[in-house]
């Protein structure tokens, strides 16, 4: 294939990038425009005056920080739970021989194929019956139930790529099976674990539907539903506050992405090819 000149590539990519980035840009701009400017009949791209009053109001006058803390706890616990289970589960699926192993693996994937709406009612009833309704724990369980299958599959393909000889060598060298797992398998699977953790964290951070149905108290509400309910009412949408809150919501993900981007792309790439 002949290599295309760089300027043609740029000509194609940049409009696409702008198209995708525009709503984000608009969000950012709206959040720092004075409210008066917002509904001007001739909207301008760049604000005439810059203000951070919306941010101050979101942080001081609303339960935003409570929701933020809830989301943090929720996403972190879900990630910890999902990673702990899926790392061990994927290892078992790859290394141990037991009847029904392949069936189990496909069944796990099958649950991932069901639309999440289908599972909401049964899950809700189950959570009520074990007394967890309306708690963060109920959301952790719900998110785990649909993040886990994908995590298992992603990690399974990663672990399948780790040569078994490495573990054998570690065991001959004096490690127990668990020791070999910790010394050799975990470091080798680290890129996969990081990308799976990111995937789970993002999923839990952004989830809306389950949060809406399973939780309806401010103590347990995460950001997604919290911000919506506090700023959107039947009569009025507080656009400036909404946009400021949205920017604040995005910040953790952007920071995490910036840190782990390399792992994320290589991780999804490898998992995709082998899976």
């Amino acid at each position, binding site marked *: 294939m002949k290599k295309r000149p760089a300027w043609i590539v740029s000509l194609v990519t940049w409009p696409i990038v702008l198209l995708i980035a525009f709503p984000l840009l608009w969000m950012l701009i709206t959040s720092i425009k004075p409210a008066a400017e917002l509904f001007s009949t001739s909207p301008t791209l760049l604000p005439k005056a810059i203000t951070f009053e919306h941010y101050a109001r979101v942080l001081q006058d609303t339960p935003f920080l409570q929701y933020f803390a809830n989301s943090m706890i929720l996403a972190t616990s879900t990630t910890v739970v999902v990673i702990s289970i899926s790392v061990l589960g994927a290892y078992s699926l790859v290394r141990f021989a037991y009847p029904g192993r392949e069936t189990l693996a496909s069944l796990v994937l099958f649950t991932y194929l069901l639309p999440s709406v289908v599972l909401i009612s049964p899950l809700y009833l189950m959570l009520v019956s074990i007394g967890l309704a309306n708690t963060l724990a109920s959301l952790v369980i719900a998110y785990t139930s649909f993040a886990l299958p994908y995590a298992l599959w992603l990690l399974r393909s990663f672990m399948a790529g780790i*040569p078994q*000889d*490495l573990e*054998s*060598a*570690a*065991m*001959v*060298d*004096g*490690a*127990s099976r668990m*020791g070999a797992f910790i*010394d*050799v398998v975990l*470091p*080798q699977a680290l890129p996969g674990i990081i990308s799976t953790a990111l995937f789970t964290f993002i999923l839990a951070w952004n989830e809306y539907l389950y949060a809406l149905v399973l939780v309806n108290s401010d103590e347990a509400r995460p950001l997604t539903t919290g911000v919506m309910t506090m700023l959107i009412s039947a009569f009025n949408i507080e656009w400036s506050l909404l946009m400021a809150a949205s920017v604040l919501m995005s910040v953790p993900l952007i920071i995490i992405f910036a840190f782990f981007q390399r792992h994320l792309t290589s991780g999804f790439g490898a998992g995709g090819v082998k899976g």
Partner: protein
Amino acid sequence: MVQVVFEKVSKAYGDTVAIPGLDLMIESGEFVSLLGPSGCGKSTTLRMLAGLEQPTSGNIRIGDRDVVNLAPAARDIAMVFQSYALYPHMTVAENICYPLKKRGVAKADRAIKLAEVAALLQLEPLLARKPGQLSGGQQQRVALGRALVREPSVFLLDEPLSNLDASLRAHMRAELIELHRRLGKTMVYVTHDQLEAMTMSSRIAVMRAGELQQFAPPDEIYNRPANVFVAGFIGTPAMALADGSLADGGGHLVVHVGPLAVALPYAAAARPAAVTVGIRPEDVLVGEGPWQAQVRLVEPTGYETIVALDAGGLALTARVPGSKALRVGETVPFDLRRERIHLFDKSDGRRWKPAGR
């Protein structure tokens, strides 16, 4: 002293039987090669000895301990894997020190051991590198180093040279021989390269389909193969094998093979009805002799020439010194070294020893 014992060891993977029943005794300090074609169960045997695979039945002893129920870590062995299995995320130094670390050797002592091994294998300039930054030969030396650092009672090596190019392989072969001589440790070496087995071993265990065919020193394996399989498997170019029969030629034994009737210097006492006759290429003497053969193929290798011959339907291979001017299609006279003709009983394939030999 006996070091390693396999007693009626069998191994099945589900329905496939990899090893039907193996008996093997390895002396202390020996260099034993497990040699055989691909899939004959060499690695399985080694892995059972290492504790990475559980035998289906039978017993394995190392020294005076039964090890079948011991974890690999408790067996006092070290193993070099065919794939080297170096830990990719550790440096060369960390790789070599890992077995010591796992056995709780103090840090200062580890450093001393590392320095010793690094000097022995000339690894000093590489210690800070990761395995991914090493050549195949260097990786192999690191894998050896990781095994040597601990001074176990038995070394297990699974085709450690098979990933190397020819010249490096010859070099490492010499180094391994030297290493074994210096350390005097028991080594069990898996290979399907007969040159490696012949040059390095004190004894060779020839295997086929999980069964031990012969367990003997290299010269005996070569000069007195126990059966037709060993005869055909050992030696390049391979021994010519053909069906024949034995007869009494006025007191001494005559073997009829193809159109040839070869009088052998043995008494014609009790003899099997049908035999397989084996003739090594170096025992076919081209140039003069009582028989005639047509040249089918000439392969000069420089030092000698390999010649495929057709003696009236009997296919023979001959080694001729130098690059003798033989032409394909030409008819040449030849003779055989009669006392070196191998005879195998056709009914069971075993070597048949004429009386008085």
